[in-house]
């Protein structure tokens, strides 16, 4: 294939038609991609048919256009790589749309449709990169690199500011919770003289036999309560239990009650008394 053979001048309408077609295909694909969500299924189907029609229309346009003109599938003078890229991308987009039409009726084709669509999706940036490379070359690379250098400084400044967050002070809400537990402990036992961090620590570290998954508080909260814990079964991260490492601990009365009600039952197999609760908070406030 050589580019210097005589050819008819392409019609004025051909290049605008090609651009219009490209916009229709790209727009259709974009809409299909954005509406793949469950809620927008009907729009997704519509966009899919749109893409399928656009891909087939391209073949019709190629037949209508001047040979070797803008609408020709293989244009003289174009890099081979771009021609192949276009062919592969169109085929993949077409297959993605076609498999979508089938998947609409046959659910087992869904996975195939997803795979093809994702492949097509990845080919699009590759296609854009190739076009940018061929048409812009060095100019583009210089601009991208220049922009990266200019934007790096403010980003660094912002990161530095974000790191300098002030530390938090002690919380009166925790004192109020402790005072309530002290009142209840006194009511239950007139000999109550105050909470003990040592008793709280023994609750925290005790190995129990009620529940094999959760033998101890330390199972999830770790032996060092200043460190983040991890739910023994779900793996969910738990903020540190110790107040020094997590100033928000024991400041929400409702949550404190809920956690004691649950975890005492799960780990110890019993309710915790007001004294137990106060001891426990006292221990973790001292850590």
């Amino acid at each position, binding site marked *: 294939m050589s580019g210097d053979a005589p050819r008819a001048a392409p019609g004025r309408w051909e290049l605008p038609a090609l651009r219009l077609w490209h916009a229709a295909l790209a727009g259709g694909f974009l809409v299909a*991609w*954005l509406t793949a969500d*469950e809620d927008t299924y009907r729009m997704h189907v519509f966009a899919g048919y749109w893409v399928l029609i656009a891909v087939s229309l391209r073949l019709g346009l190629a037949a209508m256009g001047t040979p070797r003109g803008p609408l020709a599938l293989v244009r003289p003078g174009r890099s081979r790589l771009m021609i192949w890229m276009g062919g592969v991308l169109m085929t993949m987009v077409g297959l993605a749309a076609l498999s979508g039409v089938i998947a609409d009726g046959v659910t087992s084709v869904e996975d195939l449709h997803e795979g093809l*669509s*994702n492949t097509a999706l990845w080919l699009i940036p590759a296609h854009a990169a190739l076009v940018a490379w061929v048409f812009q070359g060095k*100019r583009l690379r210089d601009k*991208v690199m220049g922009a990266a250098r200019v934007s790096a400084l403010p980003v660094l400044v912002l990161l530095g500011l974000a790191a300098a967050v002030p530390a938090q002070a002690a919380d009166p809400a925790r004192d109020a919770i402790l005072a309530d537990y002290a009142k209840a402990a006194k009511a239950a036992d007139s000999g109550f003289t105050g909470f003990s961090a040592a008793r709280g620590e023994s609750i925290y570290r005790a190995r129990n036999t009620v529940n094999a998954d959760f033998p101890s508080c330390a199972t999830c909260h770790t032996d060092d309560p200043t460190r983040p814990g991890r739910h023994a079964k779900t793996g*969910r991260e738990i903020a540190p239990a110790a107040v020094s490492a997590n100033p928000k601990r024991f400041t929400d009365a409702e949550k404190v009650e809920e956690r004691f009600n649950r*975890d005492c039952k799960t780990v110890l197999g019993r309710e915790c008394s007001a004294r137990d609760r106060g001891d426990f908070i006292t221990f973790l406030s001292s850590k």
Partner: protein
Amino acid sequence: MRSIVMGAGLLLSLSTPAWADRVAPLTDPVTLKACGECHMAFQPDFLPARSWARMMDSLDNHFGESAAMAPDKVAHIRKVLEDGAADRVGGKVAGRFLRWVAPDGTPQRITENPAFLRKHDFPAREWARADVKSKSNCPACHKRAERGDYEED
């Protein structure tokens, strides 16, 4: 300028996945906080309403531990889960899971549904990974699972 816009578009398209395996994100703050304290707050789309009802009725023994909470909170969360349940909202993902549930069945574990198992047929060592720990730990692999996006990463 044009090339910068193009470059930005390129980066964007590479960093955002196709929205295929998606359910509506769970947005109720009470539900998100209560469930999310111990595990990811699963979207209600994966179980029928009667399963959620059974679960909210048995929080004293929630998969082997107590997840008891105040009755008004239970009622609130129960309504959120029932309203968003697979048999109430419909949708593709919900349908995929519901297909395997007996008409009067009240399954509790989403991870035992064949629709889940079919897509998670991995060797045991994958599940044993320290950062995975449990089958309920969706975000270990699906980074945007909490936003309802279960696309692979």
